[in-house]
């Protein structure tokens, strides 16, 4: 059994699901079933008394591990505050740190993210920092006690794929905690590619949520992540510059092979 030990838990599904942007939360049970995800992210917001809605967690399988995010935080202090509130809500000690000041590309602030990671890891949280894929910053996150690092493939919600591939490859090579590719993955093939490269998991939200058929897309992502992981474990062959025949070149048609 290929188990991912992470944040004090053991999981077998390497697809993490973000739950934002679905046209209705009622799609979530089908999406979770079809994809087989065991980890889902959620956000914390003020209750809207004027617009009462069914509580979103009622749609989430109780077996799922909840990973609240700190979206909305612009500083480490704000992220820490959100994380503490989320833990007080009684949904475990996992937290995805998201500190974003840039409204156009929603790129994370690695420095503030690191500060929040240091504080929260000391408080016993399993900390999953969402970050730009920078090796030095990733080492510091690891040293600060992060449970994993979550480098972005491309900007949040852009469906642009693994634009930061080379930098993620370096993180996978150099960082000895799980690398979870988060943000930007738009197609199952891109999720498979991240897994083939040796990512421990991928987190997908928009690509599933905005698909015409989110449940079918969730299933496709689940299959792609399993395929990519299996390929990684199988050990892909070397890439070569020139052709190398796949059929034996026995020369029965002429004496000398030309």
């Amino acid at each position, binding site marked *: 059994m290929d188990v991912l030990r992470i944040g004090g838990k053991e999981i077998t599904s390497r697809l993490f699901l973000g739950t934002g942007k679905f046209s209705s939360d009622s799609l979530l049970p089908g999406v979770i079933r079809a994809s087989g995800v065991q980890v889902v992210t959620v956000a914390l917001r003020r209750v809207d008394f004027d617009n*009462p809605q069914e509580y979103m967690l009622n749609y989430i399988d109780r077996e799922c591990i909840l990973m609240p995010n700190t979206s909305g935080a612009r500083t480490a202090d704000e992220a820490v505050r959100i994380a503490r509130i989320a833990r007080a809500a009684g949904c475990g000690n996992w937290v995805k740190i998201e500190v974003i000041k840039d409204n156009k590309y929603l790129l994370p602030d690695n420095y503030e993210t690191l500060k929040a990671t240091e504080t929260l890891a000391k408080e016993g949280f399993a900390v999953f920092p969402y970050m730009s894929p920078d090796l030095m910053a990733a080492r510091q996150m690891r040293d600060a006690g992060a449970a994993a690092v979550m480098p972005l493939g491309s900007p949040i919600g852009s469906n642009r794929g693994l634009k930061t591939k080379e930098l993620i490859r370096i993180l996978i090579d150099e960082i000895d905690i799980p690398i979870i590719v988060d943000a930007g993955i738009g197609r199952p093939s891109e999720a498979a590619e991240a897994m083939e490269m040796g990512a421990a998991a991928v987190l997908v939200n928009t690509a599933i949520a905005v698909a015409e058929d989110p449940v079918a897309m969730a299933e496709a992502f689940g299959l792609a992540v399993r395929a990519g992981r299996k390929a990684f474990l199988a050990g892909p062959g070397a890439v070569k510059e020139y052709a190398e025949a796949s059929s034996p070149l026995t020369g029965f048609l002429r004496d000398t092979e030309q």
Partner: protein
Amino acid sequence: MKVKINGKIAELDASLSLLELLEVKGIKPGQAVIQYNGDIIDRDSWTDIVLKENDELEILRFVGGG
């Protein structure tokens, strides 16, 4: 009595505990987390804290997010 709930001034008739306020607002206690005058309050204390003039409350819960 005026208190601030989620950034808006609200007029309350009587002195309510945090738990009673949730009931009035139609929120199930298991679905919310409360920050009272800046402090996160354990569910166990929701009956003990009674609102007073100018209190500030944040009543939060989980929503979909990536």
